[in-house]
Structures are given as structure tokens and as C-alpha cells.
């Protein structure tokens, strides 16, 4: 679908740069974190005063010693704004549940490949995943005939596949970048819902895990994998997880998972558990944010009372 309302740059004006493979054979960063160590998370609720709820999430950017052009590590920077609950428009059908509209948009400069202004297929697909995760956590029948808009802007994201890897060396599982975005969107939306004081069953967080083959033929589970650090993936999984209820509202796995592999335990089981563990890690941050929000609320309440 062409964007006819704006003057855009040429759709295919420049040739894609092709990078020579570096002599070491790897233009990736070595993962220095432990397999079960997440990147540091910065989460700040209430960044947009005019919205009923908002939050900003940033992941630690990986320092990189080499100056390779195609291995510039980009981190994840997300901003989420919630408007509502507000009444449904008059012409809308009756609904006894709160209606969610989720809008996930990459900023044009968010990734290496420039994104257009109109939401493309990937953005809509990510939006559907986030919607599935959030619909299960909001107590929707407390707001009949109303709606909320959740708008998530991705300011910076990892590329979906490794940049510059060309056709010769592609990641065995594409889409890890998108999975990281889905996971980040769930966590940031959860913080924004908290800021907007919308009733939820639990604090939902997202988590990503990947199965990485090692030299000795074994497989290692990496929590919170970054595209630039994982050139070879077997499979990856993202979950939306509610720790207090120990329930999962979203599962999305990609890659090939053999059925009855080593040790009679299906590899899906352990992958799912790893992703849940990653979500539990993010939950620690979210709980801290919740505590700080509650403390700020109570001090505000005390000040208000002393005034009257």
C-alpha cells in the first residue's frame, strides 16, 4: 500500500550495502553475560503528563570494543502512552467489556532499515501479539461501554535479523528482534497500565529465551538474547507471564524444536520455562516500580490531606 499523502523518500533509491566478512569470521559480539543474566532494564512510569498513563523502557546497550560498522549494538527503547478509559463512540456497538486498541509503531529511525509512516505488516503483527498478552490481564468487565488506546512507540530497536549478514549467512531463526520488541512492549504497557490505574489481575511482564547451539554439540538456553550476540539460534520463545497466578497469556515460539529429544523431555518445555524465568527477572523491576509509584501516591495523599 503506497503512502500517497506524504512525500516520502525513494522506496528503493539506494543499493543495499554489502559488507565484506571480517577476517575473524564473525562480525558479532561475544555474549559476556551469563546465560541466565538479563540486560539491565530502565523503567520509568509517568513520563507523559497529559496521558492517563505512560511509561518508558530502555534496555542496557551492549558496549562493543570493535568498531565494525555492521555490529553497532542497538538497544531497545520503548515509550508507551495510554489514553482512557473513555466512552465508546455513539455509533459503536454495545460492549460490556473494555475495548483495547493497541497501536505499535516503529519510529522511522528506529532500525537500520528505515520504516515508513504507515504501519506495516510487522508492526501490526507485533501489535496483535501484545494485544493477546494484555487482553488476558485487564479486568475488562469493570468498564462497560468504554475503550482505551495503548500507543507504543519504538524509538530504537534491534534489527530483526543480523544486518549485513547477506544471503550467505543468515540467522537460522529470523525474528528474534521482533520477539524482543514484543517482550519489551508487554513490560512497558504493564507499567503504563499501572500508571493509568487500570485494574489488572497481575503485573504482567514479557520474557524472551533462545536455544543456542554450542561447539560441543550441546544446547544452551540464553535468557534475553540480543540479535547481535546470537548469530546462530535454534529456536526462540517469547512469553507474557503473570507471576502471582503462574499463568501465561502469550506464547510465541519460532525455530525448530525436535519432538522427543535427549533425555525424554521435550525441548519446548524447557524453552518455555526459560522464557518464563526471563519474564520473572523483568518482574523484579516492575514490582520495584509499582512500590515507588504507590509510595509517591501515598505521600501525595498525605500532602493533599494536610492542605484541607
Amino acid at each position, binding site marked *: 500500500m503506497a503512502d500517497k499523502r506524504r512525500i516520502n523518500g525513494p522506496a528503493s533509491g539506494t543499493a543495499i550495502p554489502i559488507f565484506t566478512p571480517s577476517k575473524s569470521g564473525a562480525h558479532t559480539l561475544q555474549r559476556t553475560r551469563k546465560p541466565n543474566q538479563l540486560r539491565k532494564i530502565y523503567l520509568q512510569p509517568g513520563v507523559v503528563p497529559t496521558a492517563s498513563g505512560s511509561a518508558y523502557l530502555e534496555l542496557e546497550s551492549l558496549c562493543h570494543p570493535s568498531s565494525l560498522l555492521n555490529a553497532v549494538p542497538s538497544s531497545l527503547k520503548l515509550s508507551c502512552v495510554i489514553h482512557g478509559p473513555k466512552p465508546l463512540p455513539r455509533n459503536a456497538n454495545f460492549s460490556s467489556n473494555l475495548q483495547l486498541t493497541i497501536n505499535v509503531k516503529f519510529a522511522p529511525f528506529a532500525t537500520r532499515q528505515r520504516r515508513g509512516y504507515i504501519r506495516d*505488516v510487522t508492526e501490526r503483527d507485533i501489535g496483535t*501479539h501484545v494485544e493477546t498478552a494484555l487482553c488476558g490481564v485487564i479486568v475488562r468487565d469493570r468498564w462497560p461501554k468504554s475503550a482505551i488506546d495503548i500507543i507504543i512507540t519504538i524509538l530504537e530497536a534491534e534489527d530483526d535479523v543480523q544486518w549485513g549478514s547477506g544471503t550467505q549467512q543468515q540467522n*537460522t531463526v529470523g525474528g528474534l528482534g521482533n520477539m524482543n520488541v514484543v517482550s519489551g512492549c508487554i513490560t512497558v504497557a504493564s507499567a503504563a497500565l499501572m500508571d493509568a490505574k487500570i485494574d489488572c489481575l497481575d503485573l504482567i511482564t514479557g520474557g524472551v529465551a533462545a536455544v543456542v547451539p554450542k561447539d560441543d554439540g550441546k544446547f544452551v538456553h540464553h535468557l534475553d538474547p540480543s540479535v547481535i550476540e546470537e548469530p546462530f539460534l535454534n529456536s526462540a520463545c517469547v512469553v507474557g507471564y503473570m507471576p502471582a497466578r503462574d499463568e*501465561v497469556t502469550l*506464547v510465541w515460539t519460532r525455530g*525448530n524444536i525436535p*519432538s*522427543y529429544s535427549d533425555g525424554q523431555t521435550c525441548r519446548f*518445555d524447557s524453552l518455555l520455562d526459560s522464557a518464563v524465568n526471563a519474564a520473572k527477572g523483568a518482574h523484579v523491576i516492575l514490582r520495584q516500580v509499582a512500590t515507588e509509584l504507590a509510595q509517591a501516591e501515598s505521600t501525595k495523599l498525605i500532602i493533599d490531606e494536610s492542605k484541607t
Partner: protein
Amino acid sequence: MMPATSTATTLSPAELSYLHTSLTQTPPLRPDLRSSTEFRPLRAETDLLPTCNGSAHVSLTDGSEALVGIKAEVHRTAGANVTKRLDEEMREKMSLDEPSSTISAAAAAAGLDSNRKPRGHPDWISLNVDISTLRDDDALLIFLSEMLREPLLTTSTTTTTTTTTTTATRSSSLADMLVINSNWHWHLHIDILLLSPFTASGTSYPLPLLSLATHLALRSARLPKLKSQGEEDPLVDDDWESSLFLFPPPPTSARKPESSASGKAGPNEQHSIPPREAGRLLTMPPITLLVMTVNSNIIFDPSHSELAVADAVLAVSVSFSSDTTTHHHHHHHAQTPTLLAVRTIETPARDTMRGVPAAGEVVEGDLVPGVWRPRVGGVKREVLKRVVRAVLGASADDSGVAREVFDGLEAFLRS
């Protein structure tokens, strides 16, 4: 914004409660009296479009039908000359230096060594879903096409522990099968059309239908035989009779007793493996199954009314691969199922109206048996694991539902 049409249901709270109660029985009582793993019967025909490389038409008993056409075009590979020249330069450089230790076995396994055949690119497969009653930018349409496209692009890898300590990983994806040489490739257009009218409140979720139709079309797809060799510009044989299947039918082994009785054995085997596939991994196109859970019950191929009370709806994509080099198991378990993708689909049960007990409103949180409450929350991990186990089979002896579906399709294609 209007309430999402894709989740609208026309069932009343009382009907939903009735359905939910009957589906939570052990075994579940389904409205059409199927067993929990039973699929709705379907009619299928393949190779019906004369201008396509492969096509299939599948219709279900509820009147929904889908038509899939596959067309292949020869395209020039972008940047082929540059990458090839660079590869050669690099190989020279690398051979001069001592073997670098940073190139791990995993790197070699994933096809980093440049002596290999060029790898395919996901962009060479374009998939398009068209549902006449939906707008082109409808979320359901996009979600469906992503769900069908995703498993097609996934590289299926088998890891076989060989005599050495390293694991030999051989990977092949559909895109890799489209490589002609370093300059040319086939471009596959998969066009999926839902022929029956689709209304969100009245017809079943079209995913299983579209997935089966795509699978059958891919299985019937044939590419013309190449006359050119190696790096020559592609020239194809115009005799359609000599064309090769994109997915060669799996060799009929010991599971067909009549093959030995008819005296056709060994080299005269009818479904012989084409030379280009010999010693490689044979992968079948993926099948995506729709599974729903209600409490602890797992229900396959849910109809529209059953979906309305689901706790969770999952799309599970499975592929089967058989190793052509190791034929130590000559029964049909030589083909191992591989899980390619699992996706959660938003359940319509969340956006339903709650029922009001005859005695009047109760305190929130109090559950009155027989009165419908919209589903909230997610599902336990254990249920998800059980779903995957039911699809794939818990062990080598216990074949899963995916195997049954695959065998059914196999029997249809052979007939």
C-alpha cells in the same frame, strides 16, 4: 473505535455456559459429538489450476472452502556477483592464514563455510492471503498470513550426533530449495484465497483450512526440470512430464507391504529420490493445527461455537523431516515431527457478556455454577506443555495428532 469484529460472538451467556460445561467434562462433550482429537471431514483436490505450478482446493463440511495456487518464477539473485567475488577473495585470505579458532563448529554447521551451495533468502517466498469480506489491512488477515508464512521460512535442522564429538547439523529450508545457482533462483508466489464468505461471528477460524490447502498445494507443486547445469543461465525442459516435485514424496518403505509383493523393490522403487535430494534432508511443508484448551481439556480443530468458550487458542505448526541417508528405521517413525512455531491467538471468550444469576447480582469474584463469566487470565504452563505433547507425541512410540493428520494427507496424495 468499534468493538473488534473478529472477537464478536452471537451466543448468549446461557449458551456459552452450556457449551463450557459440556466441554469441561471428561471426556469433553463436543456439540458435533467428535472426540477431542477428531477433525472435521474435508474434501480436497490438487493440481486443478492448469496455469499454476501447484494448486489445491479444500472444503470443509461447514461450507468454508479455500483455493491455493503456487506459481514459480525465475529471478536473478540480487548482489550475486558481488558476494561471490568477495567470497572468493575471502577464501583466498582465509586459506593463507592459519585456521582461525573463532570459527566454531556451530558456525560451520550453520553454513558459514563458503564451499557450500548458496543459501536461500526468505524474500524469495511471497505469501498472500485474500479473504473477500475483509479489508486488506485487517488485523486478522495480517495475523493469518504471518502465521502461515512463519513456519515456511523456518530452517529445519536436524542434529545427528556423529562419530566425532561435534554435532553435524544439516539445515535446509524451503528458501534453500529454490536456489538454482549463485546467480539465479526460483521465486515462489503462494496465493491463498478463501472462497466462502467469511463473517467473524458465523464462520470458524479459517487457519486450519488455509494451512491444509497450502500444504497440499506445496506438495503438488512441480518445478520444470533444468537443462542447464552449474552456473549457466537457467534453461528448463518444456516437458511437464519430466518436471520435478518441489517436495518429493517420501520413499515408500516397509510400511507398504504390497511393494515387495508386486516385485518392485530396490532400484525399481517407484518413488525414488531425485538425485538432487539424495543424501539430503527431506522436509515436508508445515501443517498448522488449531488447538484450544478448556480447563484441562485439549480440543483439536475447534468449531466456531467451541472457540467462543476457549481458555486459550493456540496455532501449532509442525513439519516432518526424514533423513534419506540413515534408513535404519524402516517404519514410518523414521519421519520425525519438528515443532516450528507456536502462536497464541486471542480467545473470543474474553470479550463476551457475563450472565446474571436468577437470584440477582452477586459480589464480584463469586462464581455461581452454570452462570457464564468471561474468561480472564491466561493458562498454566503445564497445559501448554501438554498441548505440544499431544501434537507431537510424548515419545517415539506414542505418535501425536500431527502424525495422524500427516498420514491422512499422505494417504490422500497417494490415492
